[in-house]
């Protein structure tokens, strides 16, 4: 079975859980003998090499007479409006964006074909890049052999739809996060439409949790039988956690984009309740996002600056360093389709507290869970984990057992089962 997989992130070029999950899934599928070609905007050249194939959209050759092939565009809906892509922006500013219709090729190969430019980042021209990506991958229809198209998140759905229409091959769309998770009840209409279109045209949808499956069904009106919930997993750690020196300081960690979706303000409010009672607690906010300044302001207002650290965005190796220093990992997400970083924390031996509004809560039966808005309860749980070592060791032991069950080989087996229902 050959799968043409469309994705936006792949390690080491990752911004969050999406790239980590794609990597795990590709490895798992390959393990079961599935032939995978993974197409991303551009390769960094530092990706781990393996039995799967990686391809950058910037390496896809477009025939010089490409203008004649633009019939594709007639089939995909077009947006020429100004919009703003808040949750994805790396900058704190919020510039607006204008989308122009025809992607301009930027380079010509020796054989006379053309190639498009990709930044691979979530910049302010993200939507343009999404369209360019769809356009570029549509040229794989004639060149590549595959049985299934598998597209990850809205960023690649248009490409998946184009390929399906051009080849008639079945389309699987994977949903790691919906626009409702990122933006609450005010979704960006363009992104929401692309998602809805992807769900409608897909032959099968894979959601990363039952939580997310419910959103797909309820918010997008998709028949439930079309949506599979297949949980993410975590790769075995490739490095031992360091032996923790006994420190008096207890580090309580928030890690993730500092955005509405991740609920950083609930973390701060819980910290405000704990700080006076637990002088040894130190709170870390690792990540960046459009709420960072407001969060720093709030911490200053609470006069808690000496109890907080803000690390900014951390690359994967530093995330591991942070876990080594952490005594408890808190994920107070307002809406978290899965939350793979909670598994990464557990893998590093850090006890986790997750919000009930997260997919990962479905697989971590023993981890303490809390409604994201219930900051008193959250403070209470953090207090318990810090103060009562017995709780920690209990959670740790059972969580490790659960973690052992969460293997990508298992998750990919479920994905293969799903593929098989497509009657190839």
């Amino acid at each position, binding site marked *: 079975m050959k799968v043409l997989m469309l994705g936006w992130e792949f390690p080491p070029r990752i911004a969050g859980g999406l790239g980590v999950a794609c990597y795990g899934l590709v490895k798992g599928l390959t393990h079961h003998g599935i032939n995978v070609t993974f197409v991303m905007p551009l390769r960094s050249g530092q990706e781990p090499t393996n039995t799967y194939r990686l391809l950058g959209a910037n390496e896809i050759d477009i025939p010089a007479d490409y203008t004649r092939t633009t019939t594709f565009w007639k089939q995909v809906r077009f947006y020429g409006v100004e919009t703003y892509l808040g949750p994805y922006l790396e900058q704190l500013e919020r510039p607006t964006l204008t989308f122009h219709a025809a992607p301009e090729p930027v380079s010509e190969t020796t054989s006379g074909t053309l190639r498009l430019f990709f930044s691979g980042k979530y910049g302010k021209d993200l939507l343009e890049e999404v369209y360019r990506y769809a356009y570029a991958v549509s040229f794989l229809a004639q060149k590549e052999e595959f049985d299934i198209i598998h597209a990850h998140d809205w960023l690649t759905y248009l490409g998946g739809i184009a390929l399906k229409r051009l080849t008639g091959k079945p389309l699987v769309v994977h949903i790691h996060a919906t626009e409702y998770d990122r933006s609450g009840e005010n979704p960006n209409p363009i992104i929401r439409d692309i998602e809805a279109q992807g769900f409608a045209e897909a032959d099968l949808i894979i959601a990363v949790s039952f939580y997310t499956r419910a959103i797909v069904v309820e918010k997008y009106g998709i028949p439930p039988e079309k949506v599979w919930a297949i949980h993410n997993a975590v790769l075995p750690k490739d490095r031992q956690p360091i032996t923790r020196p006994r420190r*008096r300081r207890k580090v309580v960690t928030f890690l993730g984009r500092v955005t509405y979706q991740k609920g950083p303000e609930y973390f701060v409010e819980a910290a405000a309740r704990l700080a006076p009672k637990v002088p040894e607690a*130190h709170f870390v906010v*690792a990540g960046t996002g459009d709420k960072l300044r407001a969060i*720093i*302001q709030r911490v200053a207002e609470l006069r*808690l600056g*000496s109890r907080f*650290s*803000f690390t900014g965005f951390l690359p994967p190796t530093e995330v591991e360093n942070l876990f080594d*220093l952490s005594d408890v990992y808190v994920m107070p997400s307002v809406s978290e389709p899965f939350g793979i970083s909670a598994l990464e924390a557990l893998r590093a031996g850090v006890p986790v507290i997750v919000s009930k509004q997260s997919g990962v809560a479905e697989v971590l039966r023993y981890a303490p869970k809390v409604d994201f808005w219930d900051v008193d309860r959250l403070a209470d749980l953090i207090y318990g984990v810090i103060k009562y070592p017995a709780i920690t060791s209990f959670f740790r032991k059972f969580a490790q057992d659960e973690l052992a069950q969460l293997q990508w080989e298992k998750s990919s087996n479920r994905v293969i089962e799903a593929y098989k229902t497509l009657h190839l």
Partner: protein
Amino acid sequence: MRHICLYFQVHQPFRLRIYRFFDIEESHDYYHELNNRVLMQRIARKCYLPMNTLLKKLITKHTPKRFSVAFSISGMALEQMQLYAPEVLESFQDLHATGGVELIGETYAHSLASLKSEAEFRRQVALHTETLKKLFSAQPTTFRNTELVFFDKLAQWVSDMGYTAILAEGTDTLLGWRSPNYLYTSTAAPKLRVLLRNYQFSDDIAFRFSNQAWPEWPLTADKFAVWLNQLPENEILVNLFMDYETFGEHQWPETGIFEFFEAWVDKMLQNRDVRYVTPQVVMADHEPVGEVEAPKPLSWADSERDLTAWLGNDMQQDAFESLYALEPLIQKLPIQKYPDLHRDWLRLQTSDHFYYMCTKFFSDGDVHKYFNPYDNPYEAYVTYMNVLSDFRQRVETALTKAE
């Protein structure tokens, strides 16, 4: 007769390096060694050394005692001179030896301790005096507080410590309808003379000199001399207080600031009735004409002349309060046994750290951005608080051991 009192502030903070969360409890090295070194050496080359040479020339030329100046050199600046540019310290010692310089006392750390702790304030003033004795064999009797922060209680402490004069900003709040061009005393400490900065004339040199948008640009020596000579005859004292870095650093040599200064002094001194004097001479030669009262602290900064540049927002207040919460702990640790902790305690109190966290970007932002090592006030705050976290850990560990 007309007296012009020139006082220059010499100060450089120990700027912090980008001290991250991961450094807490791992590294106790807080300072941007390279930046501090390079800046001190650059300012030495562009300002301290050439301006000292010029002042020495003017002191020697206009004898007897017709040209003298006052300096306040913070402990932080003195330390960095010793570390990075010993020739600058020698140059100041040499200048002081001419007899044409009065050295003024301040808080060693160029801190805002007076706003938080009388005890810490007194300790730092004593430490600064001790340092001036050691390095210059000088005993200061005039005082200036960091950023010219002035209030009634402070006047009492300073008078109580044996100082006879203090410098303050000639704000309208303090003076009302009155002119800064006289000697005053403090209502709260009647024995203490108060010299008030003439901000109009001081800022003509310090801020506006090279501003081409200023209608009076270019400011020439003749023009400035005329302005001063046009003052009513009975206004016999003009206090010009400014950062020493004005010469060659804030105002680049290319603006002609050095030539201007020399020509202006020469021009003024053509009039035999004019003298450039230091605060102690003002004290001896003038009688106070009135009292000033400051129930609330005033400073020389920005248009408000208050403390909002240092303690105006939550980040600044949080940092400031967190810092001084450590004072009782620090004071339990003897300095002989914990010299490093006491050194960092002082360096972290320097007012610049709080200035970098200022969010008043829109009105006075230009000045605030100068020498600011951070991209934004949030970064300044986060870095400072990380350092403070580590520092607090060290203090607590030392205390546990000591007990």
